[in-house]
């Protein structure tokens, strides 16, 4: 199995330790272009872009290739981030995985479920990690930012944040940073019904691979990922502090609340169901984002709040 942290950071002594090369698919679009600039400013080693028809040109100082295959061969990159419109996502993602990409960050929103399932199957065959679709991406503060998140909410530290929502990941991380809880990694799994890396997998990757004092899980209504995670925490006797937040308690049933995955059918996906499972796993659930650091401080038993 490929290892997320080895892909993102590498090992001491590697020529590209903490400078892992990243390819941007859809680099010349408005969105892709802006965020390439932002990632470069953060220090992410963006080495190539792909836009069919624009091979040979440069954008933001980054060379553009016609195909993923050429870009991968020229740079040896194993990480790619996709910015293409949802209807072109499937072909872009297939091209990336077929070219040897091992970590695919899938930014587009509104990707059909069928296409997401197809990519999940292909990633299994290719032993690759897919994050998203509909994700803000991943940031390891101070080291690498592969995504669309602003840099300002994040600070280096030892708390991991896993989130189904973009802006809530920023909001919660900001609150943590202000309370002096820096982050070892912030991982956006995405707001869609099908996640390339589901909540439990993200949780296990982080507990095994990162230096952490605790984990914050930012969830929302819809599906049963939080319920499954709570059971998993119980089954595996995870003993570090976990604090959760769940958005959508006041949402009506059977209405899609912005995210494709945020919809409640009967009790399936309801906030009550998630809160009660978390209670069984001894995971406190914050009522609002600003409460997260307080609950975490309580769990850690340290007065780290200013």
């Amino acid at each position, binding site marked *: 199995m490929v290892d997320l942290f080895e892909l993102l950071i590498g090992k001491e002594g590697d020529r590209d330790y903490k400078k892992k090369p990243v390819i941007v698919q859809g680099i010349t679009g408005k969105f892709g272009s802006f965020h390439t600039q932002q990632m470069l400013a953060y220090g992410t080693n963006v080495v190539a872009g792909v836009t069919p028809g624009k091979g040979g040109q440069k954008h933001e100082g980054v060379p553009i290739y016609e195909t993923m295959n050429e870009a991968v061969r020229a740079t040896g990159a194993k990480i790619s981030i996709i910015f293409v419109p949802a*209807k072109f996502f499937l072909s872009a993602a297939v091209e990336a995985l077929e070219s040897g990409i091992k970590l695919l960050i899938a930014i587009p929103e509104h990707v059909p*479920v069928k296409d997401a399932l197809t990519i999940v199957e292909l990633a299994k065959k290719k032993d690759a990690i897919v994050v998203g679709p509909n994700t803000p991406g991943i940031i390891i503060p101070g080291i690498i930012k592969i995504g669309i998140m*602003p840099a300002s909410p994040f600070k280096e530290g030892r708390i991991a944040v896993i989130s189904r929502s973009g802006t809530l990941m920023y909001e919660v991380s900001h609150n943590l940073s202000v309370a002096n809880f820096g982050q070892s990694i912030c991982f956006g799994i995405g*707001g869609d019904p099908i996640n390339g890396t589901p909540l439990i997998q993200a949780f296990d990757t982080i507990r095994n691979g990162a230096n952490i004092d605790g984990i914050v899980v930012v969830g929302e209504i819809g599906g049963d990922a939080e319920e499954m995670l709570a059971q998993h925490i119980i089954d595996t006797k995870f003993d570090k502090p976990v604090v959760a937040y769940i958005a959508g308690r006041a*949402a009506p049933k059977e209405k899609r609340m*912005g995210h494709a995955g*945020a919809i409640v059918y009967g009790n399936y996906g309801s906030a009550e169901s998630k809160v009660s499972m978390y209670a069984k796993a001894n995971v406190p659930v914050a009522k609002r984002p600003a409460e997260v650091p307080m609950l975490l401080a309580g769990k850690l038993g340290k007065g780290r709040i200013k």
Partner: protein
Amino acid sequence: MRLLEYQAKSLFAEYNIPIPKGLTSTDIVQGRKDAATLGFPFVIKAQMAVGGRGKAGAIQKCQNPDEFELKYPDIMQKVVKGEKTKAILLEKMADIKKELYLSLFLNRGKRSYTIIASGEGGVEIESVKNQIIREVGLGNVDASTAEEVGKQMGLKDKPLTQFIDILQKLAKITIDKEAELAEINPLAVLGDDSVVALDGKVIIDDNAMFRHEELRKFQEVSELEERAEKSGFSLVELDGNIAVVGNGAGLVMSTLDMLSDNGGKPACFLDVGGGATTDTVYEALTLISKMKKVKGILVNLYGGIVKTTTVATAFIKAYEDKVIDLPVFARMSGAEADKSKEMLKGSRTKMFDTIEEAINAAVIEMNKNG
């Protein structure tokens, strides 16, 4: 997109899944003609996107024209769990021997399609004990899998053969139309051992609609929703008087929760998407101005990259253009917050440092005005 029963059944008919003879109307004049064509007795079924119609009296038997004149208008004006009757389906009564349950749905946890079936149908599936559950990957169901499921449900002979056929056709609908759910409850075995879909519920993946022009005719969006969609927003209309706007679905849900916790009543959920520019915020305010019930606007924007002054400009422009004349309670994190506050001085938009403060002010103001 959730299809109404008659729409789901039109898909069933297209794929040769047997359904009872039925006709759909939206007014009693057409309804009378349908009744004459169909002949009494029949069932009058409200077409609405909600479960529990039977218990709520939105499905009733009808024996003769006198009953029809009473029941048709009654069912036409039913509201169940906030959902209004959209149309009326008149359907021939079936001679039911046994009711079954059958569905194919997108199992999010397993990341695969899953069959749920049961020999006990006609009730809510959550309450059924003997559920047969089978994962089927991307949704394709072969004959041997269908046969195993049917046998486990206790079917044999003609009903089993028919069930196998229906399950495979339902799977084909699920794949072809990119449904997240295709459910038949009840699927009935009739007196002559034929198997018929007495109800139908199909939910299509909204994100796949661009590949399904043929389903557009079933799509029913309000003028506001359509406008929101064009701007790349998502809008859910609610019952209260405070419009809730923000950038990012999670953030807006979170704001809705906090507002409700503090006794405020949200009028809508409006997510303007990740970025926030002068244009998107101006367009959001324009949309909200069309909702008459709105008495105040609560704004929660997480900036980061965005300058709050670009958003403040949108508010000022909206007041100047007389798009809105409502009090706005805004929390905008991001660069140049002090400058934005200065810009908004004297306007009806108040800026706060935290969302909690903005909510408190909004709730107090709304209570003041009754």
